[in-house]
């Protein structure tokens, strides 16, 4: 059995690093107000690892302590993965027209925000919502009011909401937008390891 081919599938990431990245993506997706970039490579690699482990466990006799330990770990990783995918789906459902708009307007070379399955899901959701609105309400309205602008009807993701964040590398001169006329813009330096509370918009640009 060639081990090196399985090794290269990890793309020089140790499995521990892969799981750590998955957990980081999970926490980031949970706490950010808008849909973040799709980490499909991580998802695929983790699925591969899980399938491998599952296959191994099928082959070994039941009742083994080792098997139960491996099974527990598989369950934990599976939970993180499902929770990650679930929070992405929730955001897609909440902000579906904006998500599709963003995907349409990105350059071909930029990484995509949605995986192919998520994209198909979003389009279906849009089509279903439009059909539903038409069937339930719109067709009973006078003819000149029968269209609805979905982009305006669904609220945009609140990019100004506050988030807690942890700084990993030192950043300089982060601009904090003023909220009132009395305050001025100011710049701060972010030290490594600091945990802050500030609005998402200024985090995005930094």
């Amino acid at each position, binding site marked *: 059995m060639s081990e090196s081919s399985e090794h290269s599938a990890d793309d020089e990431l140790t*499995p521990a690093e892969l799981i*750590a990245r998955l957990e980081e993506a999970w926490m980031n997706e949970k706490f950010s107000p808008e849909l973040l970039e799709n980490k499909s490579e991580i998802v695929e690699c983790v699925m591969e690892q899980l399938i491998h482990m599952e296959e191994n466990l099928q082959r070994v006799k039941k009742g083994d302590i*080792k098997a139960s*330990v491996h099974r527990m770990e598989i369950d934990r990783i599976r939970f993180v993965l499902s929770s990650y995918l679930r929070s992405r789906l929730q955001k897609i459902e909440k902000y579906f027209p904006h998500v599709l708009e963003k995907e349409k307007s990105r350059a071909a070379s930029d990484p995509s925000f949605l995986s192919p399955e998520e994209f198909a899901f979003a389009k279906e959701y849009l089509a279903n919502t439009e059909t539903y609105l038409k069937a339930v309400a719109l067709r009973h309205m006078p003819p000149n009011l029968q269209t609805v602008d979905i982009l305006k009807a669904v609220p945009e993701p609140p990019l100004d909401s506050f988030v*807690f964040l942890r700084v990993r590398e030192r950043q300089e001169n982060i601009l904090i*937008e*003023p909220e009132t006329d009395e305050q001025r813009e100011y710049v701060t330096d972010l030290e490594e390891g600091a945990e802050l509370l500030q609005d998402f918009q200024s985090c995005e640009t930094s």
Partner: protein
Amino acid sequence: MDPSEVEFVAEKEMVTVIPNFSLDRIYLIGSATCRTNVPHMYRSADGYLCVQGDLGPFNPGLPVNVPVWLALNLKQRQKCRIVPPEWMDVEKLEEIREQERKEDMFTPMPSPHYMELTKLLLNHASDNIPRADEIRTLVKDIWDTRVAKLRLSADSFVTQQEAHAKLDNLTLMEINTSRMFLLESLNCMYKLRTNLQHHGGTAKGQEY
């Protein structure tokens, strides 16, 4: 985030146990000890395709480091004894408590998940931890002091309309207790303020 999810994250911390069974090495996918090891995959003697990291080998009476989720499971199956982490000691915790009460800012905690670990270990393994009740009270005192400080600083954040705050040394569990309320109320106030500033501007994010 749900408190049980915070506990899930805390369960990855390592703790020492003393097993009463023997087993050779187990290789987990996401072992926390192995962040610096170079990965390699190979087939072990009993046919497992081992991926990364190692736990064990387990020998009766010899201490070994395992993640908390595994330690609790083994303890429940009565296969091991849990050794309390070195910070879970009455004198140390009293010192930490005094330090926390003196300082205005948050002092560094011995573990980023001290609250969850205390609760888990004291609930499942209090027979392995000396003076468990005192430890429970001490940790609760430290927690109360820190959460009170957090409430005060959240209050001043809101009244002085700050745009950002620095919160070093806070643990995830503490942040989580006030996360939903604080963030939602800050967002609400932000919306009210910016609408005052921009009369007639397009109001984004209308929530119903």
